[in-house]
């Protein structure tokens, strides 16, 4: 079959809402788009461990500490799972991680903001995991099978995270004046970056139309953003917190994306440090595995 016919059959399968599996024929551009999107998603999970990890050692109660540890561990698990799903497209996790460490790969810009207070942990769970769910629920029906299946599992955990984050905010909102102030300031800090998580306005979104045709994307950025606001504003009211008023500052979005956010350098530096200082450990594991293989060969 020639490429045009294959492409036609591929699009017909997509239009019929069939799942594309790793061994199926797919256009190169479809494969590249998925690799880009899925690896960015995996990187975001891993880099996202850093701002929240910042509070593991200082959580205010042992119960909150346990919940936060489990949450950050979940995010690591999401990363592992998504790297695995991306590998089905013919790339290796090591290569993807090298790109991240080289500063050549993107991850969600939201994680380039700092978590100066405990309330930021609440705000991240509530707003950032909340926005992630809005983005990801449609991905559970994404045309690429391994990605769709990964998202089903991940979305379940993200909704726990969202509830746990909201629960932190609720305790703060019902707490002392200092706690309420902490909660309001965290909402003020995270509101706009959370809205930016849905990506640029539809008019400026360069990948959207093709992704919609491929059913990698099912709703536009602005549509998802609107839904998130509708869903979240009553929750803020219930907390007695004021949602910031005004417009999204897209120049900030561009700046953070271009590497000039408050924590871009720190985040990549932390990942690099972990990778570099773990090199001898990974080398030891490889050397040991080699020795075991040659011992087994000798035994045969």
């Amino acid at each position: 079959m020639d490429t045009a016919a294959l492409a036609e059959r591929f699009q017909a399968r997509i239009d019929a809402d069939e799942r594309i599996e790793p061994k199926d024929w797919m256009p190169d551009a479809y494969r590249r788009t998925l690799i880009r999107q899925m690896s960015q998603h995996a990187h975001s999970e891993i880099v996202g461990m850093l701002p929240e990890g910042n509070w593991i050692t200082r959580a205010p109660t042992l119960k909150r500490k346990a919940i936060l540890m489990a949450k950050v561990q979940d995010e690591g698990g999401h990363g592992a799972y998504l790297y695995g799903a991306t590998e089905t497209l013919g790339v290796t996790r090591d290569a993807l991680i090298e790109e991240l460490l080289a500063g050549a790969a993107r991850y969600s810009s939201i994680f380039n903001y700092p978590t100066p207070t405990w309330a930021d942990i609440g705000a991240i769970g509530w707003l950032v995991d909340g926005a992630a769910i809005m983005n990801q629920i449609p991905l559970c029906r994404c045309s690429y099978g391994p990605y769709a299946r990964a998202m089903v599992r991940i979305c379940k955990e993200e909704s726990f995270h969202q509830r746990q984050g909201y629960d932190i905010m609720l305790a703060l909102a019902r707490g002392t004046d200092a706690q309420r102030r902490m909660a309001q300031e965290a909402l003020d800090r995270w509101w706009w970056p959370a809205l930016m998580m849905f990506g640029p306005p539809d008019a400026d979104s360069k990948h959207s139309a093709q992704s919609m045709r491929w059913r990698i994307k099912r709703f536009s950025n602005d549509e998802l953003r609107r839904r998130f606001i509708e869903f979240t504003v009553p929750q803020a009211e219930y907390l007695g917190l004021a949602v910031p008023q005004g417009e999204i500052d897209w120049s900030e979005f561009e700046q953070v994306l271009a590497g000039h956010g408050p924590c871009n350098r720190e985040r990549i530096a932390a990942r690099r440090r972990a990778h570099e200082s773990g090199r001898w450990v990974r080398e030891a594991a490889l050397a040991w595995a080699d020795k075991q293989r040659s011992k087994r060969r000798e035994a045969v």
Partner: protein
Amino acid sequence: MSAAGIDDPHGAYVLRLADSNLVLAQRLGEWIGHAPALEEDLGLANTALDLLGQARLLLTHAGDLEGRGRDEDALAFLREERDYRNVALVEQPNGDFGDTIVRQFLYDAWQVELYGRLGASRDRQLAAIADKALKESNYHLRFSAGWVVRLGDGTPESHERVQGSLDRLWPWTVELCEPDDIDHAMLAAGVGVDLAAVRAGWDRRVDRTLSEATLVRPADHPWRWFGKRGQHGEHLGRLLAEMQSLHRAHPGAQW
């Protein structure tokens, strides 16, 4: 509310077990997001979570035995360093991955022996906690012993590094199996375990793994240092200052 330790030997005995788990969980929590690879990050987080879970059950039990209304958070966040009763091994800084793994291995091997025997404690609550914790500790030990072997028998560099970790951490293991008055009293009461038996089991486990790892067991040190009696080095104070800072900054607040 008083922020003191627990004087009654039974409560003090349980508190020692709780504190060791809590302090080690806190140390492991520092790794999350920074481990050599994703799987190790998840593995260390898993151990940290289990140890924290065990610490919470044990702290609650210690507070109940004390009967003065102190819950897990009062005991964790409002006691000073001198009233912490963790073994000094667990307060040692994380160092590199090898240091962390050796510390963990020495502790896991001890916990497996300890919990295996505490299941027969006359304190039924403590026995139930130990039964549940034993499964977790066996799993932790597989993870840490597996890494001790890979690092010890990996590359020349890893061998040298991890032998250094073992040499540095070894002196802190003495108190694990060296009974004091509280251990003797609790053994006599049928609550605690016989540390001589724990010692024999710990020796076997440690020797087996070290030999597989081609590592040399360091000579025992004449030095006696008892974190479990409140003798701490310079590191625990900082660990607690960080852990307790937010809780203490808002006295009486609910979280």
